[in-house]
């Protein structure tokens, strides 16, 4: 899957890794992206954005994609490009992403505090807010989240500029 999706990166070095579907590895992957991004010259605040977005994507793959089944792997590919870093996160779920995944609104803090929401949804919302491009792809053998973070953030898209969310 990685090689088929990495067509964007012709000539670029791709860093691939596979992790067990176990909580805690999302933090290790976030540490790795910090190291890669520093070497590429990303600003510290963009590295924070990337670590959070990637951590959420890997957490979703571990929990929702692979059901915390340690026999299943989460594959992560980092593709440094001239002006951006492309990151792919892949699970092994045969169940496709919900079609509205990229459009969902997160739960309100009031519902969360009142215990009236299971708390789902903030991770995907944060990913959308923090990266310059995001796409979701279901292959039948797994689901892929593809994120692109540019060295200079896309001001028009507002990426990297966390927007206020109406919580009234």
């Amino acid at each position, binding site marked *: 899957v990685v090689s088929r999706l990495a067509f964007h990166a012709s000539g670029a070095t791709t860093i691939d890794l596979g992790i067990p579907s176990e909580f805690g590895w999302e933090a290790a992957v976030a540490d790795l992206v910090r190291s890669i991004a520093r070497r590429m010259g990303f600003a510290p605040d963009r590295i924070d954005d990337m670590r959070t977005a990637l951590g959420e994507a890997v957490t979703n793959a571990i929990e929702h994609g692979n059901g915390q089944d340690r026999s299943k792997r989460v594959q992560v590919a980092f593709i440094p490009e001239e002006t951006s870093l492309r990151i792919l996160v892949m699970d092994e779920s045969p169940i496709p992403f919900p079609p509205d995944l990229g459009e969902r609104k997160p739960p309100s803090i009031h519902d969360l505090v009142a215990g009236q929401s299971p708390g789902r949804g903030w991770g995907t919302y944060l990913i959308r807010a923090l990266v310059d491009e995001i796409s979701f792809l279901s292959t039948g053998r797994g689901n892929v989240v593809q994120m692109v973070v540019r060295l200079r953030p896309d001001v028009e898209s507002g990426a990297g500029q966390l927007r206020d969310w109406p*919580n009234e």
Partner: protein
Amino acid sequence: MRDLLETRILGEPPVMTIELRGQLTVLAEESLLGAYRDVTSRGAQTVVLEFSGVDFMPTGGIALVIRIIQQTRATKQRLFCVGLILHYRKIFAMMGMDQYAPLFDTVAEALASLPSPA
């Protein structure tokens, strides 16, 4: 995987601080909630969560903070969050966390916001 959050309790009742260091992830449930139970059992009426040593906090970790918000509301304790780096401060504000747990740069600023004793 091992929980990589360290907690340290500072202060005396009625104001107690839980200093956090490391990674606040879903794995930190016992560390964080255990520290909260500890300060509560010792009589804390105001609980300060000090985040300046937190290096990584995905939404699974933030969900643990929301559980502390729920519990402090039930027990009528005050809760402050201090020392968040700008990135997490923006995320807390975006989620609306600051409506339930005011954010301050330092413990001293949080304590200065407390009403003076009559």
